[in-house]
């Protein structure tokens, strides 16, 4: 190495960025060169000076000063323009992303479905049969469940969610869930919900205090195929993590005995089950472990882990089982507070699926690429991200609010207050009247966008119906096939979705969303014309 090369590399050298070979060559050169050594020292001196000065300056703390100044300034601005700031929270309205809701709902459904329809093997566990016999004798019991969801989706940087449930089950009255959901991104906002499954009344009720809403679903009807309400009830039991059903499921599929271990001082025996058909294709890498008290033969702990889509990981643990507790009829009496409104329940029916397909195509202009609930949510998330990014951005929305501010300057205080009390729609109308024509066009655009976002928000239920329906078809091994990537709403005669009803019948939903029952031969004909 010569002096010029050495000089060239000195900074990289003291910054520790050189590879082994270069570093050795440079050190070798420094050892023997009287010109470069002082040069090295000079560079080191300057580095020291920079680091020292950096430290001195880094010692100042502006954080609180800046934040205080911002709050002061913000309060001042709020006082100056009481009306405008309230009206124009457009970006917030636009960015309320309904996909998070869909994804969380999907995760909850999947956890509830864990252990469902796993009729893969004929192998029947002997030990687990004893567990089941034991559990079936219990009249009422209680357990806790914790679910943690981590990962990201397009447009949503991270969506960590936590859910804590206490579940009470009674043979006499039914099942009650008390759910607390935490959103760490929203400053740890907690939402509580109650969920009741009441077999005597053939009804399922969900109460959502945050939205002041409740959802009631009857067991009768509402099924993908003709089913009695008893079948529906059996299905409901499964969907609610009833340990009895879960054990039956595990018994009916391939599992491995993990041998003995210890949990909280109790000797337990473990059973692990992994099955790729889990969760109707929406659950990937599912891993379910059940730990049973080796002496009493009652479940102690259950772990359910799986992935949804590529990036979302769900882990849930069921623990703290309390067997043979005494329960009261009142514990299972849903109290719907005054003023709560009813919302329509997502239904896993053919009609629900058609409705879901229709609303999806209405807004996005095409059918979903896949029907798996996570893929649905991700496709929608990608659309929302793109949609929110185009056309009107925040900068423009705020420029508009400047214009509105200017228009307001001529109004007196009393008039502004009156305006502020009007309902949002009228308020916006009034504001529009005060603005020049071109601004009206812009506001209209923003409002249209807002409406579409609201529509997407309302679609949550339909998308859930669609996803659930498809999931049920997969789980019940009804040979579903879906062609949303090539079939459009204009393709009247092309098969969009089909599933098997019996050996001689298939049900088909066509591109224009009409449905027919066809023979296997007819189906083969219909599918022959589809692009491969």
């Amino acid at each position, binding site marked *: 190495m010569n002096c010029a090369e050495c000089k060239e590399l000195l900074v*990289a050298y003291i*910054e520790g960025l050189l590879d082994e070979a270069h570093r050795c060559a440079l050190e070798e050169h420094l050892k023997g060169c009287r010109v470069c050594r002082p040069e090295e020292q000079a560079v080191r001196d300057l580095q020291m000076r920079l680091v020292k*000065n*950096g430290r001195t300056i880094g010692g100042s*703390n502006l954080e609180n000063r800046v*934040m205080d100044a911002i709050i002061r300034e913000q309060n001042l601005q709020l006082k100056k323009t009481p009306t405008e700031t309230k009206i124009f929270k457009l970006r917030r309205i636009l960015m309320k992303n309904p996909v998070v809701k869909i994804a969380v709902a999907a995760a909850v459904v999947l956890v509830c479905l864990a252990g469902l329809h796993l009729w893969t093997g004929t192998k029947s566990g002997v030990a687990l049969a004893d567990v089941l016999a034991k559990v079936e004798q219990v009249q009422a019991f209680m357990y806790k469940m914790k679910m943690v969801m981590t990962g990201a989706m397009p447009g949503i*940087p991270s969506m960590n969610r936590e859910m804590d449930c206490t579940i009470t089950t009674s043979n006499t009255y039914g099942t009650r869930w008390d759910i607390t959901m935490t959103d760490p991104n929203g400053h740890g906002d907690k939402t509580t919900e109650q969920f009741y499954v009441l077999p005597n009344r053939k009804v399922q009720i969900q109460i959502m205090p945050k939205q002041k809403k409740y959802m009631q679903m009857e067991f009768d009807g509402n099924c993908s195929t003709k089913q009695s309400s008893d079948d529906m009830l059996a299905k409901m039991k499964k969907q609610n993590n009833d340990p009895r059903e879960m054990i039956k499921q595990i018994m009916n599929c391939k599992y491995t005995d993990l041998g003995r271990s210890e949990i909280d001082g109790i000797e337990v025996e473990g059973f692990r089950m992994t099955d790729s058909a889990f969760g109707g294709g929406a659950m990937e890498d599912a891993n379910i472990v059940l730990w049973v008290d080796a002496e009493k033969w009652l479940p102690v702990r259950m772990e359910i882990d799986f992935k949804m889509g590529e990036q979302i990981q769900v882990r849930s643990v069921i623990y703290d089982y309390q067997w043979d507790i005494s329960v009261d009829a009142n514990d299972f009496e849903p109290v719907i507070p005054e003023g709560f409104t009813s919302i329509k329940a997502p239904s896993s029916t053919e009609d629900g699926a058609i409705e879901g397909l229709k609303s999806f195509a209405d807004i996005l202009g095409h059918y979903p690429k896949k029907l798996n609930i996570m893929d649905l949510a991700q496709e929608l998330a990608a659309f929302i991200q793109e949609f929110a990014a185009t056309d009107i*951005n925040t900068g423009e929305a705020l420029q508009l609010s400047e214009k509105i501010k200017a228009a307001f300057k001529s109004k007196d205080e009393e008039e502004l207050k009156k305006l502020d009390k009007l309902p949002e729609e009228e308020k916006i109308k009034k504001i529009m009247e005060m603005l020049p024509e071109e601004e009206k066009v812009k506001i209209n655009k923003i409002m249209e966008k807002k409406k579409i976002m609201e529509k997407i928000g309302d679609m949550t239920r339909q998308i859930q119906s669609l996803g659930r329906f498809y999931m049920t078809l997969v789980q019940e091994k009804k040979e579903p096939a879906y062609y949303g990537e090539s079939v459009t709403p204009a393709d009247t005669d092309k098969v969009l979705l089909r599933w098997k009803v019996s050996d001689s019948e298939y049900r088909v939903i066509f591109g224009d969303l009409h449905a027919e029952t066809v023979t296997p031969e007819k189906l083969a004909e219909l599918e022959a014309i589809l692009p491969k």
Partner: protein
Amino acid sequence: MTETDRYYIGRCLDGHPDDYRHLVRRYQAVLLAHLAGKLASKDRAEDAAQETLVRVYFNLDKLRKPESFFSWLLAFADRVAKEHQRKDQIRRQREAIRSFSQDVPVPELSQDYALESAIGELPDDYKKVILLRYYGNHSCNQIAQQLDTPLGTVTKTLSRAYAMLRQSLQQQHKEFSEV
């Protein structure tokens, strides 16, 4: 503090002003170093940095590319510094007229004004690398990521910046000795 600038900007715009705190934490030292060279006083640099950060906050919605938050911040700081310098000049002129014969008080210099002003004179690209490396505590890899350039370029820029700083400091030293 691992989230990107874009993430925190989005959070602020979505109605979580408190998340601006993270951006302040991330860039305050860099900003102070940048301003100290221009304003020759630690207190004044702090005032200007505060003003810059507040102004930037209220203009976040106008930032088209959140990735370039850092460059944008420096541009704001330059504007604020210029305003402060102008005000200072007027104030000093007034004081000079008022107290004719009295000495105008020399502003309190920051720790290493020579270094800070030398940094202040660097061309933008070189300044950014020096500021991020020594005042923002970024590794060279992080700088490469932040400025969206290859690591090799960062190393070269840093080398060149060192050379310029040394030259500028020597020059200052010479002028100082001559006086």
